[in-house]
């Protein structure tokens, strides 16, 4: 059996123009790793959107995913919250297990 360790998976869907502000804030908050996933479209309070045929980045969103140790969750959420704040965006946290915990 593989030894796994408890961790938190934070997923933040955020507008593309705010992406670098978010990752900068995460890095300042001591987050050492994250991945950015594309989002093709969606729907929410501010209506439907889709990336198809768009040229500018204003209209799109991305999903930033961080796997972190549970004890680091609060500073991360603080940092993320400060950036997302008045912007549209969805922040979710879920439990997970990681292999190779020494990398986190």
């Amino acid at each position: 059996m593989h030894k796994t360790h408890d961790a938190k998976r934070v997923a933040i869907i955020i507008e593309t123009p705010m992406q670098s502000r978010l990752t900068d804030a995460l890095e300042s908050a001591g987050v050492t790793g994250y991945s950015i996933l594309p989002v093709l479209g969606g729907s929410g309070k501010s209506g439907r959107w889709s990336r198809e045929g768009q040229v500018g980045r204003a209209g799109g969103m991305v999903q930033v995913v961080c796997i972190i140790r549970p004890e680091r969750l609060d500073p991360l959420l603080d940092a993320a919250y400060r950036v997302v704040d008045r912007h549209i965006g969805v922040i979710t946290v879920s439990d997970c297990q990681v292999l190779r915990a020494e990398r986190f």
Partner: protein
Amino acid sequence: MLDLAIANLSSPLILCFVLGVFAALVRSDLYIPEAAAKALSIYLLFAIGFKGGVSVSDHGLDATLLGALLAGVALSATLPFLAYGFLRIMSRLDRVNAAAVAGHYGSISIVTFVAATSVLQDNGLSSEGFMVAVAAAMEAPAILSALWLVSRDGSARMDSKLWREILLNGSIVLLLGSFLIGALTGKDGLAEIESFIVSPFKGVLCLFLLDMGLIAGRGLRDNRAMIGPGLLAFGVVMPILGGLVGVIAGAGLGLSTGGTMLFAVLGASASYIAVPAAMRVAVPDADPGIYLTLSLGITFPFNLTIGIPLYLAVARMITGA
């Protein structure tokens, strides 16, 4: 003028745009992939910048360039105040949304500019190559004015990072960069890549306008409800006004008929790439459904179909050509 409008309306460029709008309105699944649309826009920016630079290297620089740049910056910075005033009178937009919309109308739409150069060419008119640089210079100042309008009640956020993003956004860097490359390499440089950036230009523009039509149509379809009669009127009146101011500036600077018309187009057109991105960062409370629909769904089609021939006719009149 009517002839011109009809000729304009029946050009493949406009018809491709119309096809895009139609496809979006009937909810066809026709779409141009994001990467392809972005590639087309890079091509257009590169080509228009390069050709502008070559033309400058050809005709040499004169004092008008500086004047035109300054006039462009002034136009971009002041038009938002005019637009803001109109919006507060003509529509029920709150201050934040009115300011955000206003910023779009001070800034410019490079596709409208590109389409206008193509109409000039069809009419056998040339224009000052440096107008490309003027276009680049006009992208940002309007954003500052809009933010100033917003920040009076503290709802705008401005930081140095945003400044860098605005001034060094991809379109500006590519437009000015290729302008410089064109200016440095001149006619020889052009000869090397002519069959890439000159001959297929109009066809590429057709496909790009098809994509613009798809996006504009989708915006109209989904956000129609947001655009009342006041905003609709604004979306048509404001470009005419901006166009007039532009014609006056162009003619005042002694530009050619073509250059004067392009100045009008810069004044008349509304941003739909740089300003929206800046507004999302700095004025998140403003609703993109309003400013994007106005800029892309109302003003862009208006300029493309009626505006451009109108500005050309006025420019011809005022420059006596």
